[in-house]
Each structure stands twice: as C-alpha cells, then as structure tokens.
C-alpha cells in the first residue's frame, strides 16, 4: 500500500511537469501580453514593466525561473491584480471553490445514488422513467443555462435566495451555485448507479441472498449497494474534474470569488502567473483526487489489492 502510494506519487511528478510545460508555452504562444492595451505604452515604461516581471528575458530562461520559483512554492506576483501574489489569490480563492466543489460532489453522490437505486428497483415503471428523463435533461442542460434559470425563478421572481455574490460564504449564497454545479453530476451518477444496480441485482450472489429469504432491505443495502457503487466511485475522479470545469462557469455567473473565476479572467488578461498557478494547483488536485479514489476502490472491492 505504501509502496503503491509512493509509486503513484513518483508517476504524478512527470504528469504535472508536462501539464505545466504545456500550459506555460501555450499561454506564451497566445498573441498579446499582460500589459498590452489599446493605448501603446511609452517604451521606457514598457521596458520597466517587462524588466520587473522578467518578460525581457528569453522564454526558456523565464521557464527555468518559473520552475525554480515553483519548487520553492512561489507562484509569483499576479500581473493583473498587482496588489496581490498568486499564492495569496489561490489561498483566498481556493477555500471558496473547495467548499462549493465538495458540497456539490457530496450532494451529487447522495442524490445520484439514491435516485439511481430507486430507478433500478422500480425498473420500467413510471418512477424509473421520470427519474431517467430528469437525469437526461440534467445531463443535456449545461450549467450556464441552468444557473440563470434558477436565479431568475428563485432569486428574481420569488426572492427566496440571493441572485449572486458570496457574502463571506453565507449559507443562503451557496445554495444556488451548489445546486447548479451538482445537477449535471446528480444526473450522471443516477444513470450510472441505475445501470450498475440493475446488473448487480441480476447477479448470482443477489439471487442467493434472496433465495436465503433475506429481507429485500438487507439484500439491497448489505449485498447489492457496495458492488453497484464501484463504477460510481471510479467516476468520482472525472466528476471532480467536471465540477472544477463547471465551477469556472458557475463562479462567473454567480459572481463568486473562487479559483475558477480567476482562471477565466487570468486567461483573458494574459495574467501568465495566475493562470499557471491555477493550472498547476488544479492539476495537482485532480491527480491527488484520482489517487484517493483508487484507494477507496480497493477498500470496496476485495478483488483489488495494491
């Protein structure tokens, strides 16, 4: 187990390095720089700015400098938010995104598995059809359509919830963004659970359990649920990635000060350091999460041992 973890850790480093290198050079390949604006700057001012942020050095040297600083845990100063360093911005933005993301994943997992199980147990009934129709809709309607609709109905017309903003993380402000983020995942997870549950319910161990005369409740919760959840667990890795991508949009729509919003604004403004910071940070996070998922997988499935 420890050996496996160590191996995974070593394998993660080159992945991160490749990710970082790609992001670094792709960012620089985009036309326009962080200080370009409609009005051209006086050459002396431009030169000073370039010097200050080391943009006057050859690209490869900048890359080396970035790696070196990163090894020390320094993401550099933000080009766009001049009063802050990228480390500070990530430190303020991440807890916000983390809270949104984790809540959305938990919500998606709980609701998704419950709905999926329900649909599987009532296969080919009205319940099954309505859950699956809802799920299909959930998958096909993207966040950026769902979120404004939710705002319009629940915030503008009914005035039950705020239309946006973070407000220091007040519970009321988190409800709509979390729902918007979780909905597509609830839909996806419920479909996954349903399919796998139906398969498990038809398997021999379950038939045996039923033949023994175990109550249906026990059959489902003790014997069927665990194997049925395996595909869902392995989906949690990609789900994290999906939630992170989704948060980019949702944070923008709700005006939430999270990492996703920095990423979009950073990319548009050619804030090299901020974009790199978010990419590296999220990259590491996704790798870590996939690793955790694999560990959980081993706990649930006795056939897998590291």
């Amino acid at each position, binding site marked *: 187990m420890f050996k496996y973890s160590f191996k995974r850790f070593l394998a993660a480093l080159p992945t991160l390095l490749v990710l970082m290198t790609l992001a670094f050079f792709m960012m620089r390949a985009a036309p326009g720089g962080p*200080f370009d604006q409609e009005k051209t700057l006086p050459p*002396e001012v431009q030169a000073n700015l370039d010097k200050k942020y080391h943009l006057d050095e050859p690209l490869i040297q900048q890359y080396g400098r970035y790696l070196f600083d990163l090894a020390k845990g320094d993401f550099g100063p933000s080009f766009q*938010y001049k*009063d802050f360093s990228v480390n500070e911005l990530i430190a303020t933005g991440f807890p916000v995104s983390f809270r949104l993301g984790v809540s959305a994943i938990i919500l998606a997992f709980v609701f998704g598995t419950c709905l999926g199980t329900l649909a599987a147990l009532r296969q080919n009934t009205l319940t099954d059809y309505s859950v699956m129709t809802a799920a299909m809709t959930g998958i096909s309607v993207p966040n950026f359509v769902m979120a404004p609709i939710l705002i319009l109905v629940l915030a503008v017309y009914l005035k039950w919830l705020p239309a946006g903003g973070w407000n220091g993380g007040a519970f009321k402000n988190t409800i709509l963004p979390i729902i918007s983020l979780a909905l597509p995942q609830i839909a996806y997870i419920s479909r996954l659970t349903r399919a796998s549950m139906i398969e498990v319910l038809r398997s021999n161990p379950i038939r045996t359990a039923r033949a023994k005369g175990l109550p249906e409740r026990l059959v489902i919760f003790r014997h069927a649920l665990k194997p049925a959840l395996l595909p869902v667990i392995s989906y949690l890795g990609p789900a994290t990635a999906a939630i992170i991508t989704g948060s980019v949009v949702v944070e923008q729509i709700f005006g939430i000060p999270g990492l996703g919003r920095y990423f979009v604004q950073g990319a548009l403004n050619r804030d090299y350091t901020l974009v790199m910071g978010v990419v590296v940070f999220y990259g590491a996070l996704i790798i870590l999460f996939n690793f955790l998922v694999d560990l959980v997988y081993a706990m649930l499935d006795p056939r897998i041992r590291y």
Partner: protein
Amino acid sequence: MKRIQHVLVLWCTLLLITACGGDAGDNHASGPDGAETSNLDRPVKTTMVNTGERHSEQYLRRGNGSEIQTLDPHKAEGVPSSNVHRDLYEGLTLEAPDGSIIPGGAESWEISDDGLIYTFKIRKNGKWSDGTPVTAQDFAYGLQRSVNPATGSKYSQILAPIKNAEEIIAGTKPVESLGAEVIDDYTLKITLNGPTPYFLGLLNHASTYPMPVGFAADGDENMFRAGKLISNGAFRLTEWVVQSHLDVERNPYYWDNENNAIDKVRFFPIEDQSTELKRYRAGELDMTYDMPFEQFKWVKENLYDEFIVAPYLGIYYYGFNLTKPPFKDNLELRRALSLAVDRNILTEKVLGTGHIPFYSWVPEGVLNYSNARPPEATMSKAEREALAIELFEQAGYSKEEPLEIEIRYNTSENHKKIAIAIAAMWSQVLGVKAELVNEEWKVFLENRKQKQVTQVFRAGWIGDYADPFSFLELMHSSHGINDPGYNNPVYDDLLSQISAEGNPDKRRQLMEQAEAEFLKDYAVMPIYSYIQPRIVKPHVGGYQSNILDHILSKNLYIIKH
C-alpha cells in the same frame, strides 16, 4: 462552410433590416391596449431627480463592472478602478455633480497670464485618512511617482503638458525635474509646456492623486490594502476581497465630511451585465454599472422610472488600415464605404438603445464646442448611397468586380451585431464581400497594432477629460492609439498649434479645423457617440449624470424606503 454561414447571416439581417424599416409601430407590440401609452413610446430619461427624507442607514451598493486591477491610483486603468479611486482619493481639483470643476485638495488657484504657471493653495484642513495633514509635498510626490518610469504607470502620458514630464517618462531627465514645485507646505506651483485649458480637469484624474511622501516607494506593493492604504478622499478602504466586493467607509478626517451623507459603500465586481441586472432586480444593488443592450426594451418598459440614459464622452468607430492596400492611398474607397453605412439603422434598429448616430470625431456634449461635420451628415440616405456607388467605381470596384475585405472585431454580442449589419449594408449598396473575423481582445489588439492582417477594425474610445483635444490627439501620427496608421503633417501641425494656443476662442477654432482636416481623410468611419445607460433605485437621492460619467458616492444619499 463558414462562408455559407456568413452569407446566411447577412441575408437574414438584411431581411430583418428592410422589414423593420417600414414598420414604425413595432414598439407597440408589447404595450397595453387602449388609451394608456406604453413606456416604450416615452423618451428615455436623461436626468434623474429622486429626493426625500434620509434613511437611517446610509449604505450604498454599486455594481462596478470588471474587477479593478489595483488600488494604486498611479498604476490604475479602466473605468471601474477610477470609480473606486474617486471615492478614496481627491486631486487638486474636484468635480461637482454636473461635471464642472470645483476646488478639491486645493482651495484656490491662480493662473499666470500666459497660462503656463498654476499656483495652487492647498487646503489647510485637508487630511489623510489617518488624520495627518495633506501637504503640497504629498501632491508633488504623487505627480512625480506617476511620471516616474519605474512606477510603470500606464497613464503617465496624460501628464505630458507638465514641464519635463515627457523627458522623465522617456528616462532622459530625473524625476525631481518635474515642473511641480513645492513653495511651502501649502503652496504648489505647476509649470506647463504650453497653455492647456483642460489642465484643471486633468488634475482630477487618478494619475495626479497625492500620496504621503515616500508611501509605496518602489517595490512596496503591499501598501494598497485595507489597514495600510491611506487616502485623502471622502472614504477610506475597509475591505477588499478580490472578485467579491470592495468596501469603503466614511473618512472622518475628510475636510468636507459634514456634507457626505453616505457611511459605507460596497462595490461589486460584476463583469456580466445580465448577471448585474438580475442582482439589481433581486434588490442586491442600488445602482448598476452598465446594462445589457439586448434588455434595453424590457428595462425601458418595466423599470422606466429607474432607467436613465445620459450622453457619454465616447465614440464608436471603424478604422481602416491605411498602411496596406486596399485602403492605402484610396480615399474614394474609404469614403464610399463610410457613406454606404446608415448610422440611423445601426443605432435605431440594430442596437435600439438610444446611441447617437455620428459622423464626426469629437463626441457630442462637450461644452463650448461645435463639431466639424462632413457633408454626408446632412445628406439623405439615397444621396449618400448614390455618391457611395460613384466613389466606389472611381476607386476601381463594382458589383461585378467586388471588393473582398475582412472586418475584425473583438468578442462581444454588440460588436457582432454591428459588424453583421455593416457587412450587410456594404453588400447591399456596393456589392462588397465582407468576411467577419471575431478575435479575442488581446489577439485583436495585437493584430490591430501590427497592421499586417487587419483591414477594417472596430474601435471605441472614452475620453479621459472633457475636452475635444482628448479625442483629437489620438490621431497624431505618433500617438499610441493611432491604429489606422494615420499620418498627416498638416494635422500634426494643427495639433501642435492647439497645444500652444492660449486664447480659448482661437483654440476652439483650431480644434474645429483639425477635426475637419481629419474627417476629410476618412481614416476612420465614426458610427455613434456613446450613451451610458444605467438603472438606479428610486431610493438613491442626489444622482446626477455628467458627460464623463463620474458619479461620486459622496454626492449621493439613501432616501427612506
């Protein structure tokens, strides 16, 4: 495939335009039946008068566009950051709610007869937010810090009228040589290169704001945060959470504190205008920063009393790349293309937002100035189009041998709508085959500046100070925003004359002459003069619009509601 798509879009628009053209009554569609007229038929309000008893809680919530980049006034750029800076800081002069210049950090001033020397008496009761007095040294330090190339100010050039400023920016003279001399603690003498009638208005710009001597000397970037930032305006910073909100509170040391009603202001960074409108409707904002154009009708009909549209010192135009064919040395072609565009359809039908159709260069609403107008401003549509076809043929093109060009614009629904409509008009009148190229902002700017692939491009400019020169100077052959590559020695010479002219009447004549000189070359195609639409809650008192759209929180108050 892309081309087919474009052609389809073009035809659809064309149909739409012709269909709308004959139908004057489409505004009635959503109005109620009977005698009562719809809000859509009423003219939009350009002024707003809300008065009433004051609310016990004086807390103002403003939408403020995209997140500001820095609280350092000397490095700041963009409208959202100036909105915050105007609340935090105060220059030597200040603006009254109607936009006129009144004493600010300086209580009075004297101008020498030749208009070159300004002597400011600094207000003795002026205080920083920590209670220390604001002195002439602080103002001089602010100006020096702004022009110091080490600061990296993007607006340093705006101070070019001050003696030696340009040399300091270029790094050839020391910062101390700036023409801002401290006579004593409360007297500051500023020497200019030439008479600059708009100079007092300039002293209200963020790049001139004072700073305690030695504050945030280079490399010290952590000073512009709550707890450290010291400001001399009506408010002081209490909290800034990037991408969430920025809070300021009353500065008790402000010299005019007794006339400031507002205790606390919260600025919300909301780039997306639809989001802003939703949050306004949900009651989370007292006033918006902007408004989505596509909701203009809805807002006008449903929020008529809260909706205000005021002229704004800005111009929207298309530029021609004059350094490459087909536009190089081809005045006829440029003029033909300009003539073929019907500004009225663009503003009334395509945008429908009350923008002012425009043929001149200096936006409408600048005091004591009358625009130079090219002949087409008074021609009928038929006359313009007939002349366009004639010139187009003189330029060597026809419907059989059509011109093929690309229109470049940066990503935005409104820019796209306008580009589609212009392409359709060119196609309809002249048979021009125009391809639309949408580029992300930084890519777009890069291409525009390099003048290699760009042919026709979309552009806009908001004036930094309310003087025609803030627009005229843009097209000087060496100016940083002269992206058409306009180079006319006569025009450059006129600009130098304007800078040296001290007599206001003569200066105005020279400016009108310069504008006419520029317009006759058709380096650009002006489309409309800006307006600033905004929605303001009825409980916001004291709101008054002005041409620069400088709305200071201290001039507002919250009415009991």
